[in-house]
């Protein structure tokens, strides 16, 4: 699904940043999303993610929870402060450890469960990206 109501005139693909400390997860997700119309960028950790966001525009960040240095909720909250336009989704194998209230407070969507359902993940991304693109 792609909408063209961007300020830029050329049809640029929405940019999705995936953050996970497990490189094979990043690879599998990129592989899964190949047919979706996104530009996929990846970061292996929270600090790498923040640095990347300073360098380029991103429409959506999908982040894992358990990472060294900063957990997903903390990262996504910080991204919300620095780049309020960006849609943020949390994915985690440890849903019980995540406070849903905190997510709501920080405007973070999810949590999506790991292992994920391909269809569910794709749908969540499509909806979130559509909203971001519609707003811009």
């Amino acid at each position, binding site marked *: 699904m792609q909408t063209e109501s961007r300020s830029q005139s050329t049809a640029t693909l929405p940019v999705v940043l995936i953050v996970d400390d497990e490189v*094979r997860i990043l690879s*599998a997700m990129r592989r899964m999303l190949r047919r979706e119309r996104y530009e996929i960028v990846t970061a292996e950790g929270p600090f790498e993610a923040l640095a990347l966001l300073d360098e380029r525009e991103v429409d959506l960040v999908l982040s894992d929870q358990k990472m060294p240095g900063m957990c997903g909720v903390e990262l996504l909250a910080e991204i919300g402060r620095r780049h309020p336009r960006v849609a943020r989704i949390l994915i985690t*194998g440890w849903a019980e450890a995540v406070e849903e209230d905190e997510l709501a407070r920080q405007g973070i969507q999810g949590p999506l469960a*790991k*292992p*994920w359902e391909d269809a569910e993940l794709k749908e969540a991304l499509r909806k979130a990206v559509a909203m971001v693109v519609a707003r811009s």
Partner: protein
Amino acid sequence: MELTSPVVRIAVLGSGDVDSETHSDDTLAALRRLGPEAEIETYSDIESLAGDPVVAAFDLLVLDCDDSLLATKWLEVACKVGPPVLMVSRDDDDESALDAFRSGAAQCVRVGSDYANVLPATALELIHQWQRKREHGELERQVLQSEKMASIGQLAAGVAHEINNPVGFIHANLFQMSEYLQDLQGVWERMQVLQETIEGGRDLAGIRAASEALRDVCQEIDFDYVKKDIVKAVSESQEGSERIRHIVRDLRDFSRQDGGEPTLTDVNMCVDSTANIVWTMAKHAVTLKKDYGELPQLRCHRMQIEQVLMNLLVNACQAIEEMGDGGNGEKEVTVRTERRDDGVAIIIRDTGVGISPENIARIFDPFFTTKDVGAGTGLGLSTSYNIVQRHGGEIRVESEVGNGTTFDVWIPGGDERKGDASEVPIAD
């Protein structure tokens, strides 16, 4: 002097011939002063004691036997039963008392003027000590059981977490690979058509058409990309699968049941599988360094040794976590094994908070803990200490606040063992 409930059971052991009957009567009379809550049973011959399984559950054994040779035989049997043995002595010298203690008697009471008071008082004290010890043993068993359940819960959570990612990406990759295969079907079909066209001797136009069709489908599916990515997907999935196998193997090693007898064990393997399991539960931040020496096989109770290792490794990780980002910044646990003095030494060093001089003398005490309420029962180290002791080994600790702690466990390889490592109050 009288006991209050619950009932205690006392066995009075004696030789049973006429003269001793009288002596035993004195003893019986003195013990009856403990009141109706004291159930007293007499055993007049050694065989009846040796063959009776019930007596191990008694609270006290009192030996009153005149014949010193016979008394020695009685002592030998009685001290193996379990409850404390109180010996009655009618000799004037100290030799017989010393002999009694050497054989394992808990106390010796000399028949004298105040015998009627001294005997029951001493009996009472020994009974209370024994009951406290048994309660402690029972408590220790219960707490160990619940510690074990708690750590099984942690273990399960750790394992689930560790295999979660590999399962996730293997599953996703398999799905993508099946899509790739479908795409490739199209390519292979067109290849076949091209081949048949060439071999069928069709004209150049026909061949060109088939070739174009092949090129088209390759472009459509992005054949160059698929060609490379399918290989990558398989390889990454294999790595994930290997990781899962590794975890399953470590778990299997860890949960292997202990029989009653010590077995020849590869200590490096024990250390390695326990360390791997602990690291599935530890936070990523702590580094584990392994330094395994060449070790002889060790005759020991493998599960108990793994319990000690798990205890020390978990403590090491917690000490580092507690330090947070302070201290020297290092977050490392080193596990070293080496041959030492006809036995095996396992040295576990951490760069954690360390143990203060006031606490270090007490860390092996049962129930001593520096953790918050509910965070630990304080039995881990005392149990570990007991296990090592029963193997005839030694466990030593060196520590400096802010600089870390080193535990040194040594277990002899020979058969010199103090006590029996298989009588252990540990839940299976």
